[in-house]
């Protein structure tokens, strides 16, 4: 198992991957094979919910890569996620074909009733799956590359960088809200029917999407872990801690930053692409700066610069949200807000730090006994 070598020394990662693998095996079984009325049956809505969490987790891993290791607090990663999502959404939209409400084979419904006569140029090609998938990584990647190239070359750092990433996603938010942009405005893209010919409503497709999300997360995790463990990872951390010193030993800091930033944006794009078919809608709201801030918070809650912490954080916070919005619809924000405050105060390393502390304490006490 060559690729798993990168998990050497990464217990959190190992545990996480084992759990993930188990889930990818158990969930399909429990959902598809266990009969409905059974106690063990897993309802499809849970499968989809978990699939959604996994895409969030992948996004969080992408953010942790740049924030935890490169020291760039990106307040705009939601933009890359959303762009990946839109690329997928456009594919799904084209798959509707003439099954839209107006029965127009060429144009999506929202274009029909706003009197568009032909498909805008940037929609072409999205009827092909491979092309759309390419765009899922290329569009966020390219944006990140251009944006990063400009910013890192000009040595924009710290809060200045954070704020312009926020400006970026905010600008995209406003742009996508505009109906003239041709992405469906505020309503975004919805009413998807099928993907690669499989109905999005069938349990099988949903389970498959869940498994795919799990695989993407595992893959993304291993990729990031590999990067971190390589010399490049050490350089990146060096840049985080002492950027100008890294320059004086001969590293082209901006190249490293652009590279990692772009990789991270692409991962976010993939996450977005998997997210859209599972939630069934993509709308400019995903570009909202507050969304991006929330992702940062997942990472912080889970534990910055641990990668697996990001996954824990993303799943935990979103699970809490799911539960609390149902259980205590009037006061769940108090719970969430308090959670954020308490974690910051009492778990400076996040939940991953808590796990590590417990472990080392146990280890210490065992040694003391010996």
């Amino acid at each position, binding site marked *: 198992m060559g690729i798993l070598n990168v998990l050497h020394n990464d217990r959190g990662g190992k545990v996480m991957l084992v759990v993930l693998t188990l889930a990818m095996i158990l969930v399909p079984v429990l959902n598809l094979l266990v009969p409905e009325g059974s106690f063990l049956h897993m309802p499809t809505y849970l499968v989809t919910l978990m699939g959604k969490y996994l895409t969030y987790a992948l996004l969080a891993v992408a953010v942790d890569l740049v924030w935890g290791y490169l020291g760039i*607090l990106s307040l705009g990663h939601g933009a890359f996620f959303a762009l990946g999502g839109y690329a997928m959404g456009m594919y799904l939209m084209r798959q509707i074909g003439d099954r839209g409400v107006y029965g127009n084979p060429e144009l999506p419904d929202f274009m029909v009733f706003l009197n568009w006569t032909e498909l805008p140029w940037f929609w072409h090609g999205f009827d092909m799956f491979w092309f759309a998938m390419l765009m899922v990584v290329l569009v966020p990647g390219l944006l990140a590359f251009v*944006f990063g190239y*400009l*910013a890192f070359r*000009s*040595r*924009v*750092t710290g*809060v*200045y960088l954070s*704020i*312009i990433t*926020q*400006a*970026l996603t*905010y*600008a995209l938010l*406003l*742009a996508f*809200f*505009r109906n003239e942009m041709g992405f469906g405005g505020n309503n975004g893209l919805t009413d998807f029917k099928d993907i690669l010919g499989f109905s999005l409503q069938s349990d099988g497709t949903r389970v498959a999407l869940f498994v795919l999300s799990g695989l993407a997360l595992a893959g993304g995790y291993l990729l990031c872990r590999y990067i971190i463990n390589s010399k490049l990872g050490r350089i990146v951390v060096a840049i985080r801690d*002492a*950027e*100008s010193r890294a320059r004086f030993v001969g590293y082209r800091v901006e190249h490293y930053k652009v590279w990692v930033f772009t990789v991270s944006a692409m991962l976010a794009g993939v996450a977005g692409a998997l997210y859209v078919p599972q939630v069934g809608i993509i709308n400019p709201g995903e570009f909202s*700066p*507050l969304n991006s*801030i929330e992702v*940062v*918070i997942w990472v*912080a*809650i889970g534990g910055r610069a641990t990668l697996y912490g990001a996954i824990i954080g993303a799943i935990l916070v979103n699970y809490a949200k799911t539960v609390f919005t149902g259980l205590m619809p*009037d*006061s769940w*924000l*108090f719970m*969430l*807000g*308090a*959670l*954020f*405050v308490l*974690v*910051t*105060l009492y778990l*400076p390393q996040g939940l991953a730090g808590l796990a590590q502390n417990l472990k080392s304490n146990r280890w210490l006490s065992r040694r003391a006994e010996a």
Partner: protein
Amino acid sequence: MALNIKTGFTVFLASLLLIIASAVQADQESPPPAEPAVTEPVETAETAPAAALPPLEQAAVWLQDSAFTQKAKAIDLLASSGNERAQDWLQGLLDGKLYAHKQDAFLAFVKGSKITNALTGEDVADANKADFSKITINNSLRKQLRAGIAKLSLASPDAKVRLEAVNTMLDSIDPDTAALLQQLADKETDAEVREAMQLGVAMSALKNGSEAEQLVAIETVSGSLHPKVRSRLNDLTVNTDPKVAEAAKNALKSIEDRIALYGHAETLFFGLSLGSVLVLAAIGLAITFGVMGVINMAHGELIMLGAYTTWMIQQLLPKYIDYSLFIAIPAAFIVSGAVGILIERTVIRHLYGRPLETLLATFGISLVLQQLVRTVISPQNVPVSNPSWMSGTLDINNVFSLTLNRLYIILFCLIVFAALFAILRKTNLGLQVRAVSQNRAMARAMGVRSARVDALTFGLGSGIAGVAGVALSQLTNVGPNLGQAYIIDSFMVVVFGGVGNLWGTLLAGMSLGVINKVLEPWAGAVLAKILVLVFIILFIQKRPRGLFPQKGRAAGD
């Protein structure tokens, strides 16, 4: 008694005037349908006998009718009655102060708890407001009322009122009124009023005069920026004698050029006022974030608390709306400042040296504060009134006027800025907080009581946020989402200006405001906003540390 004699006389006068008035109105072209006296001129004759009732009494009857057509008649009657009380009635009607007694059917002015009989002017003893119901009016009646009042006030001794009156009736002047105006103008002592009157005469000439008269009139009006002049001229450019049309076009052109010029001034003003809102919202953050380094996501909610304090003050002192802001400003400062200190002492204190974590905790706090307001007060917006001295405009001329509330806000922004600047420059606090934020350990070793400095400074920044909330409550919604709407912009402004530099914040806010307003007319509001953001992104490439960067060896890294 005296009252009766007086009423008798008025009855006579009123019937006379009524006949004249209806005759005049019958002449008017294309009468608006809502004015029944005109659509059915015959009715006037029928109602004339009814006018045997004194006009005020008659009007009172009609006004209490639920049909708006009847009310319209009453207004006409009042407007042409010449009764000195009629104007009060019209004004009262317009202001919604005129009530009818539910049983006894007499009219009264209700001003607060004071109720006076409209007819006699005497106080109504032991009256209860609940016994009265307001006389409702609608838009067309309001228009009619204003015209009526204008006519009545042409003879007012106050030049301002006369001017107002002329301006109000400017586009509804018929030849007879024009003649009257001409007469009045000849006697008029106030130059401005005279000019307005002559303009009115000319306007009438433009419409009804011969070609020659029209040409002269065009000359007269070509200096005026009054919008009605433009529309009248516009009418003249088509379907008239080519010479007249040509002259009208030229006059229009020169007017339009001047308007364009004022347009730029207006854009600048709009930009500055938007800028001061941005600055106000951001300036507290310039302290908590810029100087102390706390990424304070709850800043917006501190603004929100300030706005709610304003509301609260107005709820507590409903009679003193005009003074409420003067109480609200210190109150908001104290409320938000206290909450800020509380946040600092309980949470942020533990996070110094971990600036990014402050983002996480304060975000949590902002969620809690929002929901707290939803739970304790209400999820809906709450109404905050504008004091009367803040509404209205400062008219430079007919096309260029500065809205007073914006003017005050610009002024207020500058005052807040200056005060803050002075505090940070002239007191030890400013120096100490900068020392603490640069090297906490060393500052403590130098005897700086860092805990106190932190609490005070955070309190100051938060308090200023509260004060900004007072200002915002005058412009926009006061609701649980208020803070969210401003937090992103605030960070943008602080960073664009250069973190830690108050001047930068001021200049950044103002310039973003102006750029936005310059772009808006040709790009539209949405695109303008996008362009401003793109501009910020590009600008930061040029100046990676904002408008006023921290310079020097140590600023790097």
